[in-house]
């Protein structure tokens, strides 16, 4: 309560509302009491501040009112934006953001396109190939149907005239006296068999043993002009060979002896056939029955078949079955003393020398 009375006094003193007596008394009090003096100074400052504040507020208020008035009268630009000016304003405000957003969007699109382009598998070519393949299959089927129709027609119309069919293949000697190995499929349908060496000399031959499941045939040259050989340069390998072993073949896909080079690519044949092995070498019809040599000049197989669908997949009957077939032959017939060359004498020679020595014992097998 005293504080308030004092404050009242100070305020009245500052505002000059005191009577002269009171004022005199108060001034006396100010001089003697420093606290009162301090209070007066402080309150003066405060009241000044309040005054200025009041004016400041009023001025602000006046500005606001003026603005509203003038805007309503249309004498200044109104804060309410309409139509075009609003669009212009928004564009001005956001054009930078818009530009940045647009360029980011553009970049993103481009990079997505690039990634997509690089990741998408190229489906075009396989499909085209597939179509070609399908057309081929259709053609094949068509042809097969045509053949059947022709066959039926022929059967109905006239008796079959058996025309001589020539079978061509390759064979190689396994014995100095004229025993040869070839594929069963080369000779099985032939009535007369001829063999021809690289010099062009022909000899008559006949089938001694036919093993169709193993696709191995043993034939014998039965011709007076054939001179028996004392020894063969190559041997027949009894055990299986290793994958990636380099191999070469000799055969008669045409009238000339043809050399082929490759490697053993799998230990089994078509569809996992354990009888044969897969080799990678260029082979053509006529190569059938030809010997497959390893680098030591040992026969490791008989070239027998070629997968039509896959390029470069050629199959060869493993050489150990030559022994098996021969054993069977020995046990049941007069060929008891046949001795196959187990050891090769070509080991360590270069290919040219090996081939030179071997080629005389590789024959073209012809049948009709």
């Amino acid at each position, binding site marked *: 309560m005293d504080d308030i009375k004092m404050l009242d006094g100070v305020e009245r003193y500052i505002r000059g509302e005191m009577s002269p007596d009171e004022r005199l008394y108060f001034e006396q009090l100010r001089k003697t009491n420093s606290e009162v003096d301090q209070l007066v100074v402080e309150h003066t400052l405060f009241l000044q501040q309040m005054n200025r504040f*009041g004016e400041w507020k009023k001025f602000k208020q006046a500005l606001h009112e003026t603005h509203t008035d003038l805007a309503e009268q249309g004498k200044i630009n109104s804060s309410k934006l309409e139509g075009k000016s609003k669009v212009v304003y928004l564009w001005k405000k956001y054009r930078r953001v818009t530009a940045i957003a647009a360029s980011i969007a553009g970049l993103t699109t481009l990079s997505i396109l690039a990634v997509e382009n690089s990741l998408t598998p190229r489906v075009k070519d396989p499909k085209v190939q597939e179509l070609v393949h399908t057309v081929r299959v259709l053609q094949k089927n068509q042809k097969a149907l045509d053949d059947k129709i022709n066959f039926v027609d022929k059967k109905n119309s006239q008796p079959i005239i058996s025309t001589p069919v020539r079978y061509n293949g390759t064979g190689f000697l396994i014995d100095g006296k004229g025993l040869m190995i070839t594929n069963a499929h080369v000779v099985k349908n032939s009535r007369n068999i001829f063999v021809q060496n690289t010099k062009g000399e022909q000899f008559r031959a006949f089938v001694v043993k036919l093993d169709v499941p193993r696709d191995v045939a043993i034939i014998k040259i039965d011709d007076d002009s054939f001179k028996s050989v004392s020894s063969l340069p190559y041997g027949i390998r009894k055990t299986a060979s290793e994958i990636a072993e380099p191999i070469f073949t000799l055969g008669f896909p045409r009238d000339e002896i043809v050399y082929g080079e490759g490697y053993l690519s799998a230990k089994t044949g078509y569809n996992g056939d354990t009888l044969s092995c897969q080799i990678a070498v260029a082979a053509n019809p006529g190569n059938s029955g030809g010997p497959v040599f390893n680098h030591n000049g040992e026969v490791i197989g008989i070239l027998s078949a070629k997968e039509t669908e896959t390029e470069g997949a050629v199959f060869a009957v493993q050489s150990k079955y030559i022994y098996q077939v021969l054993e069977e032959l020995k046990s049941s017939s007069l060929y008891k003393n046949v001795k196959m060359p187990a050891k090769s004498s070509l080991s360590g020679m270069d290919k040219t020398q090996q081939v030179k020595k071997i080629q005389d014992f590789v024959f073209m097998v012809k049948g009709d």
Partner: protein
Amino acid sequence: MKVERNEKALLQGLACSDKKAIEAIYRENYNMIHSLIINNNGSADDARDIFQEAMIVLYEKVRSGSFELNCMIKTYVYSVSRRLWLKRLQQMNYYSTVSDNLQETIPVEEELEENERINNEFQAMDRAINSLGEPCKSLLEAYYLDKRNMQQIAQSFGYTNADNAKNQKYKCLVRLKKIFFSHYKNGNGNG
């Protein structure tokens, strides 16, 4: 000469918050500032705020008595507004240079610093008064800002007599002074 006299009259009017003077200055200069702000990533509201702040700077300057108009009001308002807007843009981390139509400008840094100080003080005062709550706020505003006498105040606020109203007013004043001086001493180092 006539223009100069006219300007002087306007400023005198401004110094005593004359409504006509305020309106005249407003009408003359607002559109210029409006386009300045709009053309520099601002809104119409920004333009109003900036212009009014510039007006307050001018007002304070005129009132301080030290103001000698050595340029047109237009130039002064433009310079202040431009500077204020640049500062606002920087606060918004919007680094750009304000593009203007090569209008003449004068340095106004000192005025702006002073203006900022006064602004801070008044805003503090505003906050202090608002934090008192009713009826203190209205009571103090009526007496000190609107300068009504205690008799009227007692009547309009419903006090039985002026003394009661006065007592109440002093209670409120003590609270306000406490808040104000604590800010004045602590918050505003140079006080």
